[in-house]
């Protein structure tokens, strides 16, 4: 059992408030990902949980026990750093056994635990090498191994994959998922990479400027973003955000007139808060737009990014806005051609003038 509870956690550096009151519950064996743009406070928050940064205000509890005043080594946590932070003069075995050595664990037991962790991470043959003789992925695994041998209540990961190349990152992502299943441990993971967030997380916490924007499962954030920021941040390529006006709001949804012209788009959102005539923002995922000879939106393809399986079209609409359209890689559409687009209203989102989403009438079945 290992739960982490944050109650109105704050962090100030002088007059500057970096973390502005965060409430969060991490359940046992859950993998929670903190995600957000640079400087949003996600690493600071992780370091506060780790005990490397003082908590200015609020309460942090692990397993229901307040640990604000407990030192980092006594909280029962283990952290994997972005730079791995391996001790360069020690072998892999010494690196992984260092915490146990500090805790006064006898050599035989230390060796047994290190061997066990090395087996889980397939590091067996590297135990007597030094970090500089290892590749990036192997160093990463040693850093994880150093955390595993301590058998911590909670694993903390601070952007652990950002120093790896793309192929290795994909491989380590799979391995981390496997580890999470095998170790059955609570994990908190910080990243700015939304692919990592979407694939690894049981629960994503989107942070911006020291505040929580939304907490939810990956698909919940994708299908039901709470506001414009989350909508723009989760999903790649970004959601297209077009200004418009709420025309009709009734029980079947909200009809939006786009400022760019074209016919009304009907979005199945709850109408409350969007009286007709109010300015709104219409959010359209790139896959909710498709080329259609009779489509209502008209523009010119400025750029076609062919990814093979998919093609991303950057379209300049007649009204002046740019949108990104995701189509099949087999579609022959070329750059500098005129194009008409159809909108799948059911997959769109409406945000009010404050940027808050109007709740959808029907929840996506995958985003329970």
């Amino acid at each position, binding site marked *: 059992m290992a739960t982490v509870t944050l109650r109105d956690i704050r962090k100030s550096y002088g007059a500057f408030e970096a973390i502005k009151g965060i409430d969060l519950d991490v359940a046992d064996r859950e993998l929670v990902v903190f995600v957000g743009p640079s400087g949003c406070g996600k690493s600071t928050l992780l370091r506060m949980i780790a005990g490397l940064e003082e908590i200015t205000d609020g309460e942090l509890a692990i397993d229901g026990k307040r640990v604000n005043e407990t030192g980092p080594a*006594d909280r029962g946590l283990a952290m994997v750093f972005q*730079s791995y932070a391996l001790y360069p003069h020690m072998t892999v075995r010494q690196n992984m056994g260092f915490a146990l050595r*500090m805790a006064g664990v006898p050599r035989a037991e230390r060796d047994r635990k290190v061997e066990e962790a090395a087996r889980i991470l397939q590091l067996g043959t590297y135990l007597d090498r030094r970090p500089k003789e290892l590749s990036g992925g192997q160093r990463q695994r040693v850093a994880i191994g150093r955390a595993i041998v301590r058998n911590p209540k909670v694993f903390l990961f601070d952007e652990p994959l950002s120093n790896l190349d793309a192929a290795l990152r994909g491989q380590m992502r799979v391995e981390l998922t496997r580890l999470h299943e095998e170790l059955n441990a609570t994990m908190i993971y910080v990243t700015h990479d939304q692919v990592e967030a979407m694939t690894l997380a049981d629960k994503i916490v989107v942070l911006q400027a020291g505040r929580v924007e939304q907490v939810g499962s990956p698909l919940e954030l994708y299908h039901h973003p709470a506001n414009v920021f989350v909508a723009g941040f989760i999903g790649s390529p970004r959601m297209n955000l077009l200004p418009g006006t709420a025309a009709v709001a009734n029980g079947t949804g909200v009809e939006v007139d786009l400022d760019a012209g074209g016919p009304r788009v009907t979005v199945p959102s709850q109408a409350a808060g969007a009286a007709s005539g109010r300015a709104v923002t219409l959010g359209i995922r790139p896959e909710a737009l498709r080329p259609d000879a009779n489509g209502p939106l008209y523009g010119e393809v400025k750029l076609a990014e062919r990814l093979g399986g998919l093609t991303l079209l950057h379209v300049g609409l007649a009204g002046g806005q740019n949108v990104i359209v995701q189509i099949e890689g087999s579609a022959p559409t070329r750059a500098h051609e005129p194009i008409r687009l159809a909108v799948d209203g059911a997959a769109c989102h409406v945000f009010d003038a404050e940027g808050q989403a109007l709740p959808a009438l029907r929840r996506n079945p995958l985003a329970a």
Partner: protein
Amino acid sequence: MSTTVAPHAGAVSGPAEGAGQRRPPSFFLLAPSVAVLLLWMIVPLALTLWFSFQRYNLLDPTVGGFAGLDNYEFLVTDPDFWAALANTLVLVGSVLAITVVGGTLLAVLFDQEFPGRNVARLLAIAPFFVMPTVSALVWKNLMMHPIYGVLGSVARGLGLEPVDWFADYPMFSVIVIVAWQWLPFALLILLTAVQSLDHEQKEAARMDGAGPVSQFFFITLPHLGRAISVVVMIETIFLLTVFAEIFVTTSGGPGNATTNLAFLIYARALLQFDVGGGSAGGVVAIILANIVAFFLVRTIARRLEV
């Protein structure tokens, strides 16, 4: 250097293969500095070697000619020589120990945040910029003098008998002065090394449950290994030739208590006017320095490999 110069000897007429075309000009461009360096090194070395095999005393011009190994024989059978050798080792060893240990501790100390840190650092490093003669004079007359010195005043203030440092503890006093001069150097090098220690490594050690003392021994000290060997190498080279501090304070005495090899050579050649004997001492010093340098460079070159 050697890799650039070595191929020139035989390869000038060889087939031009790209880089070969640049060889003659680069050789000519290198030649002046190589020639100056050779002259600078070879001429004094050859002269010293030559004099060391000559009967050459400035007081008695009638004695001259080839002396064979006599100068060396006189040198090694002179008890002063062995005393000077021992003094040299004691001086170098003690100063190295004081500066490395003290420098490491001070470096860790000055790495901490505290008000006025930059001023404190500047003050701690300042002694290195005082020239040896001046610092020796300051120590001799203002600090250690039994009548005028600060230490003497303090001793009298406490009702104790002032210590005549240079008479009673001559070697210790010289060591104190030289260590005072070289501690800032060690501090400077080691402080930059401490600052280059990866922040996350220290944090990882903290998470691993290492307290300040364990962090120092398991993380900081191994990280400093390379910088410490650089300090040891550079200091050894300079400490083997300490002269001004001894000349100004004790002139090698009392007796031969503070005579090191450099001072012995000076005394032979310029106080006893025995150029031959002095040169023989010089050759021994060169051989000694090279032995030390050989071992130091070998161990340090291995450490410097990344």
